[in-house]
């Protein structure tokens, strides 16, 4: 039964010239010996002919004009939409981004040196948040050694140093 189904499936491929010469020869032998298989092939051929005889349709006369108009309209609404960035333009953007990062890092270092010429800022001045008031800052300063507060004050991004986990951050990541 499986062999019969497989042979039957070969019929369409045979009609379409998609069998290898060896497969085609094997199928032709089967067709010569099995009238039912040959009838099935005739039926598939006739079915294919019916579909092939369907007329080719034509797009409306102004189809191309309308597509171009739509593309131009979209281009106006979203400038650069169809402009594939050239390699040179891509490099220009990358270079500009890199320059901006270096500039920002340089300015940050310069400001840090001006503000803390001796390296370690006074603990009481370490901001805990933009809305933190002085009593809370002082209270927190007593909860942990000053050395551990410094990276938070200087970096401001929560840090990723050893031994300092950030449960909220971890939870956010896990979530």
């Amino acid at each position, binding site marked *: 039964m499986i062999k019969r189904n497989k042979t039957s499936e070969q019929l369409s491929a045979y009609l379409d010239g998609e069998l290898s010469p060896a497969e085609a020869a094997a199928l032709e032998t089967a067709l010569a010996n099995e009238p039912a298989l040959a009838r099935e092939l005739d039926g598939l051929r006739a079915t294919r002919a019916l*579909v092939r005889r*369907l007329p080719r349709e034509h797009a409306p006369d102004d189809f191309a004009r309308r597509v*171009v108009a739509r593309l131009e309209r*979209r281009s106006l609404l979203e400038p650069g939409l169809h402009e594939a960035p050239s390699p040179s333009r891509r490099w220009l953007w990358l270079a500009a981004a890199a320059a901006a990062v270096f500039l920002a890092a340089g300015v940050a270092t310069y400001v840090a040196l001006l503000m803390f010429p001796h390296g370690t800022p006074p603990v009481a001045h370490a901001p805990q948040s933009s809305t933190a008031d002085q009593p809370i800052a002082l209270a927190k300063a007593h909860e942990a050694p000053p050395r551990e507060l410094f990276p938070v004050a200087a970096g401001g991004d929560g840090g990723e140093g050893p031994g300092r986990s950030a449960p909220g951050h971890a939870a956010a990541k896990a979530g």
Partner: protein
Amino acid sequence: MAGTSSGGEEAVSPGPIAFEDAVLVTRFRQGDMQAFGALVAKYQDRIFTMVLRMCPNRAEAEELAQEAFLRAMERIDQFRGQSRFYTWLFRIAANLTLSHRRRAGRVKFRSMDLLDESGGSQAANLADEAAGRHVVRPDEAAMALETRHRVLGAMDELDDEFRIVLVLRDIEEMDYDQIAQVLDLPAGTVKSRLHRARCALKEKLADLVGEA
């Protein structure tokens, strides 16, 4: 998916048509809208026919065909030129059409649209013939309107995954490898689906098949 790279492009030896398309694509990338218009004009009938055979509502088919060209042009930088442009374009159009059909829940347009499609098509063909635009093939002229209606109706009853293979093979005349590229399917699946589609159609059109 088997058989194609992630971008769906497979290296082909460039023939004259592929070369001509590549030139137009390059010109369009450089901002030449006339090149874009030329690509649309070149493929509009084939794309429109394929979409219409999947989605028999003419207005929807036109909208989908237009959108296919727009998407292709908007993503032209993703076309690496390793496959034929037309295969890539058909892939976009086929995906768009199949997605649209899935979203629409495969609404049956048969009762009205097939009548409209058949009648509309014939009217349009007559107008085209009068204007000297439409070249009627002998076999096309021989196909009675009623027969056409029956065949289209039977195709409309096929599931989309089978119907699209039938359309690409028997109407668009793509070979199995091209169909596999367009639909991102293994060639074996294309072969199997095409056969099943033809068998189903043969059953539905048994009386016509017997006459043929």
